[in-house]
């Protein structure tokens, strides 16, 4: 069986790759595309470490076939910083020690970024519900939630 040829856009750049029909988007990202920022924690939709944006919607890349990327737009953690300049969420995660081992971090950042784009002023409860599908074995979540809330505030102030 021949491999499938997929043309897609990743972090704003047109990309092409070959895949098996049952490869997941996470397989494609971490394999042929060499974008290993998205992590595989569970491969079953439970942990959120593989979070990406598909046409600006937050999804688990482990629950998407890579063939489905054809003609769509994908955003990954690799597109978050502008060159050497970190995204405010990345900077805040560092400052507030919102990570330890780092396995959950790219998923947390991608998911938090999606939240702040949809809701620039989330309550703590909204942050916790939004991130309920992002598991972290290290931090106890508190520092992550605080970092997201503080970034939201900084970004609002920067806009005003």
């Amino acid at each position, binding site marked *: 069986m021949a491999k499938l040829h997929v043309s897609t856009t990743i972090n704003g750049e047109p990309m092409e790759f070959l895949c098996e*029909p049952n490869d*997941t988007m996470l397989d494609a990202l971490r394999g042929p595309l060499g974008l290993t920022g998205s992590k595989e924690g569970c*491969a079953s*939709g439970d942990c959120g470490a593989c*979070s990406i944006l598909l046409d600006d919607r937050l999804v688990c890349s482990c629950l998407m076939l890579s063939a489905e990327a054809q003609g769509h737009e994908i955003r990954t953690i690799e597109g978050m910083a502008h060159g050497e300049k970190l995204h405010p969420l990345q900077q805040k995660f560092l400052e507030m020690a919102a990570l330890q081992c780092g396995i959950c971090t790219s998923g947390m950042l991608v998911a938090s970024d999606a939240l702040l784009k949809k809701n620039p002023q989330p309550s703590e409860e909204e942050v916790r519900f939004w991130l*309920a599908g992002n598991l972290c074995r290290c931090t106890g979540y508190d520092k992550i939630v605080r970092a997201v809330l503080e970034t939201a505030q900084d970004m609002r102030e920067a806009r005003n």
Partner: protein
Amino acid sequence: MTDIRYLSPSTLDEAVSAFAAAGSAARILAGGTDLLVQMRAGSVRPGLIVDIKKISEMTAIEETADGGFRVGAAVPGAVLAEHPRFGKVWPGVLEAVNLIGSTQVQGRASAGGNLCNSSPAADSVPAMIAAGAIVTVAGPNGRREMPVEAVPAGPGRTHLKPGEILVSFTLPPRPPGSGDAYLRMIPRTEMDIAVVGCGVSLTLKGGVCTTARVGLGAVAPTVLLVEAAAKALVGSKLDDAALSAAASACSAACRPIDDKRGTIAYRTKIAGVLLKRTAAIAAQRAGGN
């Protein structure tokens, strides 16, 4: 090497013929939040995957001429939540659909996949049954309609015929004074499987319940329509006696299993408790309409 094929047809006719031709090894792909997990676990090994998301009817949300809604089978929960009117008319159906999984899962998971996966604990199904939703199904012999409660046949099995694909849910128009609600009992607040799920839809006129439907999940091999509970509510002012009778009817309808989430006795009791709470929310919403 695998001999699996992936197709993403843009018309329903193409999808039906490819799906029917491939026989029992073929699987429909909507959001993939059940299918990919099952493929990964090795419990499903499809020879053909038919992705239905390029078929516009499958992803459309329309208000029908009579004031009802038609929701495509593959519409993700997050998209349904963004519809300006759907959640105002059917808040119970929307809250049930939106309870499925995390934000990430909501980005993909559909009510069609939830129904066709046929888990007894599927969250959207009791609410859809309560709403009186009708599904449209397309197959090699054309289209047919059936009530939602007629689709599940048992855990993981449906009454869809070989080659048939679920196309859409049609929800009826809402008379004034109508409300619906869905509650599920789970040990935590997010990301868990229902121990019991209860959907209620009703209409009140001058404080009297004129119509009601009750759907009950996770207490039998399929999600149940509990007609006896609805009967106990209709004609009443939803007073304690009527609610208790409806709660007893729900408990009586239970044929649950014992598992790590709940015992038979617990599920049976909770079914009645949830009926009362869900009916109260539906009634409050009906009053606000």
